[in-house]
C-alpha cells in the first residue's frame, strides 16, 4: 500500500502533461530503429522471392524458361568481367542519356509554351493528344529508316516517349501556378523574369520532378525497343541474343543490368530533387 501511494502522484503528472513527459532522445533513436526494421523487411522479402524462384526452377517450371537466381548471379559476375558487356552498357547508357535529355528538354519547352498561352494551348493540345495516340513502338521501323542502324534511331525512340511524359506534366503544372502569388509580386513591381524565377519555376518544381522521374524508365523502354528492332550493340541487343541462344541466365542477367541502370538514373534525379525541394522537408 505504501509503495502504491508513493507511485500515485507520478501517474497523475504523466496523465496531465501527456506526451511531453516522454524522454527527448527517443525521437532520432526511434527513427533509426524504424529505418533498420524497414531495411530488414525489404531484405527478407527479396530473399523470399529469390528463394521461391530458386525452388520453383527445375522442379515446377522448366529451368530453361526461367533460369534460377544462382545461375543468373553467376552469369552476371561472368559477363561484367568481359569487355563486350561494358561496351554494350556504355552504348545503351549513351542512347538513354541523350534520348532522355532531348525528350525532357523538348517536352518541358513545348509544355511551358502551350501552358503559358491559353490560345496556343487550346489549338495544339488536341494535336498533341493525337500524336500521343500513336503506339510509339510502331514508329521504331520509321526511326530506323530515318536515323539508321546506329545509336540515333534508339535516341529518337527514347526521346519520343519521354517527350510526352514531360510535356503533360509541365503543361498541367503551368495551370497550377498560383495566380495570387503572381499578383502580389506584380503589384510590388517585379518584372516578368523575376516572377518566373520566384513563382512560376518553384511552383512547377513538383511537376518537373514528376516528369523527370517517370521519364527514366520510359527512356529505357524506348532505347530497348530500338535495340530490339535492329542493333549490333547494347544491353537490349545482348538480351535478344541470349534469348535466341536459349540462354535464360543471360537474358535475366541483361534485364538485371537494365533495372540497375534505371535505378541509378532515378537515384541521380532523387539526389537533385532533395536539394531543390528542401523547403518541403520536415
Amino acid at each position, binding site marked *: 500500500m505504501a509503495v502504491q501511494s508513493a507511485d500515485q502522484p507520478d501517474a497523475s503528472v504523466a496523465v496531465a502533461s501527456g506526451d511531453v513527459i516522454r524522454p527527448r532522445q527517443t525521437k532520432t533513436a526511434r527513427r533509426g530503429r524504424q529505418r533498420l526494421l524497414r531495411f530488414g523487411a525489404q531484405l527478407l522479402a527479396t530473399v523470399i522471392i529469390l528463394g521461391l524462384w530458386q525452388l520453383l526452377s527445375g522442379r515446377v517450371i522448366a529451368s530453361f524458361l526461367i533460369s534460377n537466381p544462382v545461375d543468373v548471379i553467376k552469369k552476371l559476375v561472368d559477363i561484367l568481367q568481359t569487355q563486350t558487356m561494358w561496351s554494350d552498357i556504355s552504348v545503351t547508357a549513351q542512347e538513354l542519356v541523350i534520348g532522355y535529355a532531348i525528350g525532357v528538354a523538348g517536352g518541358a519547352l513545348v509544355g511551358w509554351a502551350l501552358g503559358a498561352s491559353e490560345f496556343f494551348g487550346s489549338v495544339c493540345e488536341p494535336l498533341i493528344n493525337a500524336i500521343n495516340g500513336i503506339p510509339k513502338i510502331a514508329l521504331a521501323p520509321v526511326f530506323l529508316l530515318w536515323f539508321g542502324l546506329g545509336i540515333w534511331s534508339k535516341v529518337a525512340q527514347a526521346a519520343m516517349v519521354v517527350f510526352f511524359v514531360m510535356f503533360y506534366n509541365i503543361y498541367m503544372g503551368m495551370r497550377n501556378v498560383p495566380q495570387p502569388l503572381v*499578383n*502580389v509580386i506584380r*503589384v*510590388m513591381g517585379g518584372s516578368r523574369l*523575376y516572377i518566373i524565377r*520566384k*513563382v512560376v519555376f*518553384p511552383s512547377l518544381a513538383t511537376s518537373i520532378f514528376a516528369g523527370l522521374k517517370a521519364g527514366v524508365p520510359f527512356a529505357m523502354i524506348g532505347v530497348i525497343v530500338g535495340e530490339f528492332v535492329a542493333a549490333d550493340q547494347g544491353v537490349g541487343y545482348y538480351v535478344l541474343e541470349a534469348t535466341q541462344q536459349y540462354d535464360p541466365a543471360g537474358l535475366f542477367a541483361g534485364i538485371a543490368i537494365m533495372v540497375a541502370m534505371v535505378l541509378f538514373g532515378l537515384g541521380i534525379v532523387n539526389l537533385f530533387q532533395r536539394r531543390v525541394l528542401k*523547403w518541403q522537408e520536415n
Partner: protein
Amino acid sequence: MSVRETVTTAAVAISNVSHSFRTPAGTTMTALEDVSVSVAENEFFTVVGPTGCGKSTLLNIAAGLITPASGTVTMAKQGPSGPVKPTIGYITQDSNLLPWCTVIENIMVGLEARGVQKAERKPRAADWASRVGLAKFENHYPRQLSGGMQKRCSIARTMVYEPDIVFMDEPFSALDAITKSVLQKVFLELHDQSLKTIIFITHDLNEAIALSDRVAVMTGRPGRVKTVVDIPFARPRDVYHITRATGFQDLHDQLWSHLELDLDLR
C-alpha cells in the same frame, strides 16, 4: 483605364468606375456601378459592405490588377518637385507568402522585385522581421508559422519597401479574435510611425472604426458607395479598448443603419 499622374491633392482618386463580370450561366453581372471615391494622402480609408458587393473588385481595380469597364483611377504622390508615380503595396486575406522561401527571403522579395541593392536588402529585411516580432523566425518556412505569424510576415514584406499606398483586402478576417486585435495594434503602431495612404477593405465594423480616418459604406450588388462616415478619434489610438470610447457606439449604429437595409438576401 488610365493611371495618370496629375496634380491633385488626392493620393487615390477613383472616378465613375463601373465594372461587370460574365457569370458561368452566360449573363452579365454588374459588380460596381458608378463608384467615385477620393482618398487623401496619408489617410486611412476603409470600405465596408455586405459580402459580394464588389469591395475586392474595387480594390483590385484601384491597385491596377483589373481594368474597369469604365471610369478612371488616378494615383499621385506629391514629390519635391510636383507629383510623382507612387509605389503601391497589397496585403490580402491569404498571406500569400512564397512557400519555398524562408521568412527573411519572403521579406526580401519586396526589395528584390524593386531592384534594391543586394547589400541593402538583408539588413532592411531583418529590421522589418524584428519590427513585426519575427526576429527569431527568420529562417522558418511559412508552413512552420501560425496564421498570425504568416500575416506579420506578409505585412513586413509589404512595408519593407515603403510603399506610398497600401491596399488591404480583409487582411485580418481569417484570424482568431485575439490574434486579430494584436495585429490591428501592431499595424496601427506601424502606421503611426510612418504614415501611409491606406485603403482597407473589411466587413467588421469595429475594425473599421478602430483603424480608419474615414469609412465608406457600400450597398449590395451592384456595389455603389452609399455614404462616407468620418471617424473623429485622435491618434495614436488604443485598439484594445476603443470600443469603450465615447461616440464609438454611435458611429457603430450609424454605419450599421446604412448597412442593414442591404443585408436581406435577394
